[in-house]
């Protein structure tokens, strides 16, 4: 697939033309850079893809689907009209709602720049208003309560109930797990409130990783959190932020931990580090790790149990934003690939474009089914024939492995942004693609975050 991207200037965030430049790397693979030049601030070159697999072949074309109720007109052009605007090309799969900006950690890299000092939390009535805006704009999509650290709020169970009572079918909590791993009974309280799934910050199985990324050793708390969530019947998705030289050696160990803790652990969702919000300094290319590198490291560190060829481009978000594969955790703890590249009746040649809305519907249903605890969503194992047992085993013991590459002011590709399905809910009730909402210039100036306090006008 070839296309002409646009981006923003990392200094002033003005939209500017950009192009992909693919070169042969020292290792013989193809490395793709996003190259752009601002009239005022000069040229920028940033690596976005180190194949194989190569960028050009990583494609799952989509027929754009407009938001069913665009909130903002197309006026100044992407990414300055977010709301969603009428030119957006994908529906909301997950709406990310910040319930606080406070946090009990102060990680050196944080997309939300969260910490001890923060604006007052939104009131439950404000949260109710925002949930209503989400359902008006995007229907009953999946909800992720985020922040900041949402468990800083003592009324979090009430907010989960609120979202449930509004009719949202799948509620996930984005958390560092510190409170869940520290406070007996807290996970059970969240489960009783109706929480389906936890997106658990989980960077490795070694405290040196946590000391580096999070400022203190946290492994004991993380393991306690996984145990408490498993006991409470809340699905766990392990979410490692992957940073070169810090934890890129630990991906295989995380997969093995996830398999050993199936079915409570439903998936691992790797996030290559992006530099928005708070970060120590302007990153060089050596500070970046791209999706194909994560694929290759997974193959190497699992000794071929996971393979690069297992991984698929997404049907929901833009092809260049993620990869995924599903595995059956066998009774002896092994992994067998479930998802496959081609159906038996697939036509030869490149894949034909599919409606983006179809991918969004499938992804919403998959997330709801796979990332929740199997006890709630899936048939129980029981007596029957071998096919029954296969169905029961697979339904309960599937491990979803995926990765999503967020974009920052150096890597932002507006084509990708237009295809985004992960939408932040701004305090004034707009839906803004996650990477636009959290975008900051190289000096930390935001485009949207902290600047959306206007009236809630449709």
């Amino acid at each position: 697939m070839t296309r002409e991207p646009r981006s923003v200037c990392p200094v002033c965030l003005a939209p500017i033309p950009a192009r992909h430049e693919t070169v042969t790397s020292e290792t013989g693979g193809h490395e793709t850079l996003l190259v752009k030049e601002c009239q005022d601030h000069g040229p920028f070159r940033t690596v976005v893809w180190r194949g194989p697999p190569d960028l050009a072949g990583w494609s799952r074309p989509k027929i754009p689907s407009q938001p069913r109720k665009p909130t903002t007109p197309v006026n100044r052009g992407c990414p300055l009209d977010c709301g969603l605007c009428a030119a957006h090309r994908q529906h909301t799969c997950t709406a990310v709602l910040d319930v606080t900006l406070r946090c009990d950690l102060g990680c050196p890299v944080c997309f939300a720049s969260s910490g001890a000092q923060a604006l007052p939390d939104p009131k439950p009535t404000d949260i109710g208003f925002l949930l209503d805006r989400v359902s008006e704009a995007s229907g009953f999509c999946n909800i992720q309560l985020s922040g900041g650290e949402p468990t800083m709020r003592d009324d979090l169970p009430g907010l989960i109930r609120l979202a449930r009572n509004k009719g949202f079918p799948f509620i996930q909590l984005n958390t560092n797990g510190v409170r869940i791993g520290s406070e007996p009974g807290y996970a059970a309280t969240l489960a009783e409130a109706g929480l389906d799934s936890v997106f658990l910050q989980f960077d490795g199985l070694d405290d040196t990783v946590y000391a580096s990324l999070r400022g203190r050793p946290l492994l004991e708390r993380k393991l306690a959190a996984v145990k408490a969530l498993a006991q409470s019947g809340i699905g766990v998705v392990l979410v490692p932020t992957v940073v070169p030289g810090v934890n890129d050696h630990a991906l295989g160990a995380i997969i093995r931990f996830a398999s050993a803790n199936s079915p409570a652990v439903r998936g691992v969702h790797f996030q290559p580090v992006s530099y928005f919000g708070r970060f120590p300094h302007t990153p060089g290319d050596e500070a970046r790790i791209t999706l194909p590198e994560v694929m290759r490291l997974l193959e190497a560190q699992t000794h071929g149990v996971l393979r690069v060829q297992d991984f698929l481009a997404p049907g929901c978000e833009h092809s260049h934003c993620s990869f995924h594969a599903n595995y059956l955790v066998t009774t002896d703890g092994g992994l067998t690939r479930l998802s496959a590249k081609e159906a038996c009746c697939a036509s030869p040649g490149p894949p034909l474009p599919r409606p983006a809305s179809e991918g969004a519907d499938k992804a919403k249903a998959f997330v709801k089914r796979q990332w929740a605890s199997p006890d709630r969503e899936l048939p129980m194992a029981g007596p029957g024939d071998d096919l029954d047992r296969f169905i029961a085993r697979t339904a309960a013991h599937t491990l979803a492995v995926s990765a999503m590459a967020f974009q920052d002011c150096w890597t932002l590709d507006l084509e990708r942004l237009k295809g985004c399905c992960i939408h932040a809910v701004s305090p004034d009730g707009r839906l803004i693609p996650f990477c636009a909402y959290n975008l900051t210039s190289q000096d930390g100036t935001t485009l949207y975050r902290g600047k959306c306090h206007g009236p809630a006008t449709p």
Partner: protein
Amino acid sequence: MSVIRVPEADAAGWRCAACDEPLVMRPVELEYLDALFNVELPTCPQCNRVFISEELALGKMHQVEQLLEDK
């Protein structure tokens, strides 16, 4: 691989429309998205066509398909 027997598959009373032969239970390989299942199904002994009942097609086979399909 052991042969899977499912109660939804029963050859009793069925004949092949083309050959007019009574169907017999035989192991059949069902392949979908790289997954292979060896299932005993009613089969015509002459033309080897396989009969899959509506109950099996819309039940367990559909469930397996959903579990194997990509999102």
